[in-house]
């Protein structure tokens, strides 16, 4: 099939004025300067509102004496669909089962929140938090100390009997 060429006719450059179009654009800009309905958020000074059920990076709850609440039962690495939790259980000097190693690879995590849902002692939580930038990749494997230091709010679990949290 022979190609059809459409020839566009443009005004001669010497005979065209852009003043009208420029004024039209400036008018829109000045209209927004005085528009009371602002849409630009002054992040990071101004933080966006996050849902209570927002699922961000994890945190580990601690007992009053500073021990992690985790008892190394192994349910979160079992349920984790991304296989991002590494757990080695052991016994502390008071005879309590606790995690010797507890690491979450936040790069691999898909933030489904099932670890929080399955935890029988409410130790591991996903959090209402999104600022996770780091300078190196290895900082994204959160170890137990890091998880215990995190202090952002924990996520509200979805309640099937109250699906809209009312």
């Amino acid at each position: 099939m022979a190609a059809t060429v459409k020839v566009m006719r443009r005004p001669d450059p010497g005979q065209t004025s852009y003043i009208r179009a420029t004024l039209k654009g400036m008018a829109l800009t000045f209209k927004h300067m005085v528009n009371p309905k602002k849409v630009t958020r002054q992040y990071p000074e101004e933080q966006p509102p996050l849902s209570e059920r927002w699922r961000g990076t994890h945190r580990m709850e601690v007992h009053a004496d500073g021990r992690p609440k985790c008892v190394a039962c192994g349910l979160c690495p079992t349920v984790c669909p991304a296989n991002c939790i590494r757990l080695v259980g052991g016994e502390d000097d008071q005879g309590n089962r606790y995690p010797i190693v507890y690491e979450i690879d936040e790069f691999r995590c898909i933030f489904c929140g099932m670890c929080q849902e399955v935890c029988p002692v409410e130790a591991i939580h996903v959090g209402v938090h999104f600022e996770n930038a780091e300078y190196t990749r290895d900082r994204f494997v959160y170890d137990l100390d890091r998880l215990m230091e995190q202090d952002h709010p924990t996520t509200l679990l979805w309640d099937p009997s109250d699906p809209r949290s009312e």
Partner: protein
Amino acid sequence: MADSKATQETVTLTIDGQEVTVPKGTTILQAAESMGTRVPHYCYHPGLTAPAQCRLCLVEVQGAPKLQASCVTAAQDGQVVLTESEQATEMRQGVLEFYLANHPLDCPICDQSGECKLQDYVHAEGRKHGRSREPKRVFGRDDFGGDILFYGDRCVMCTRCVRFMEEKAQDPRLTVVERGNRSIIDTFFEDGVEGSPYAGNIVDICPVGALVSKDFLHKARAWDLDHTPSICPNCSQGCNIDLHVRDNRVQRIKPRANLSVNEYWMCDYGRHRYEWMNREDRLEAPAYKVGGEYVITDWSSVLDELAERLDDPRPALAVASPFASTEELGALRRLVDHLGGGRIVYRMPRADEEIPLPGFSDLARRRDLAPNGKGAEILGMERVGDDEGRGGLEDFSGHTGTLIVLGDELADLDQGFGEQASLYMYLGAHPSPAARQADFLLPRCTFAEQEGTFINHQGRVQRFWPGIQATGAAQPAWIALAALQLRLEGGGRGISTAAEAFLQVAEVAPELQGLSYQTIGTRGALVNEPVALPGS
């Protein structure tokens, strides 16, 4: 178990609407299991007497005034048994609720979680919520000595452990103290079961997490473990075992039932010797010496080179290991025969005494502390060395012909071993000082990484399966030896499976003729001629 006289007659009964014919004397529970219906139970164990005290195996027998304990009620002709009737399930639910009245429900920190019968039964049939408002009794944790820890709170008082120590170990060190709600398992003496050579079995038979192993404590979750049927490599008894593997490491060994060998048990000696299977100092790639330096290469190049060097055969001597599989030993026998024949010796550590299990006389920790001494003997290998598995290789150090070492780590020998040999080939899993002079270093799988057979002291050929991945390029020795022989013979029938390797061994060992992996199966098969037992 029905005795031999009773097996003459049979009875036919109906269980859950299905007719089943069993030998007279069989209990209802066994009859139900023979047709695939599992009746929940705690106190009944096929290897022990049944006291009918857990009250969980109650079933409805039509015509009987109340529910019958199926573990002790003999099956009778024309009986109509209902295991799932409303009355029976309601009773089981009630019994389980009583068990949970004092159970701490500490499943998250309990080692039995995932293989716990209380968990299983309550999950299947129990109430969703407890109704008990009373405080639970608390005993805490008790050290029973040896490898055993006792969590009294979790105990369901099935007394399997007490009966095992009484009936099988015949060393009654456990008993029930107190009565009713406060009753608890306890030891008579301070040292508990310390020193009892079969005490580890009470952890296996405990249906809940009351008795746990210190060695396995908090090590892995039951559902993370892969189970591979295998044979205990620690003595010539050849107990059937399961290797429990996680992250490519053997985490523990559990006995596997085989009524002809070890019934349901195994000794603690074997149970706790598994760490060597996880050793990380391994030979990983085949290598051969060129001008005093090792060249690391691949299997086909090293075998080509080896075949070229062996083309002009010299008198061969070989050291084999009784820890190697029959297939590996047979491949070595065939190779040495091909090279013109020669002595093959093996060294085997030997214990001072047998450690029998009094309640099952066929089972003992045997004096020969290797799994396949019988296989080596059948293949015409000669036993040398002392009871430590050392010495006996004085003629070998100065040998000037071909020298082959298969599996033996030569721990007692120095770096000069094999210096004079025209060709020294070391087929091993681990590096050894005595392999320094080896012209060819070939990495071999341990038994846990390959399929094969061991022949136990009775002459029973038993199969084992690979539980963990081999390190690097390590292969079962029979693969390398058979490929080498193919090159030496300049063609012929190649083999690719352990089953074929076994058939090749049978060609040189009349005792194994007619046997195959199919006939051996998972239970093992005796070698053809009753070979005289070693003087152990």
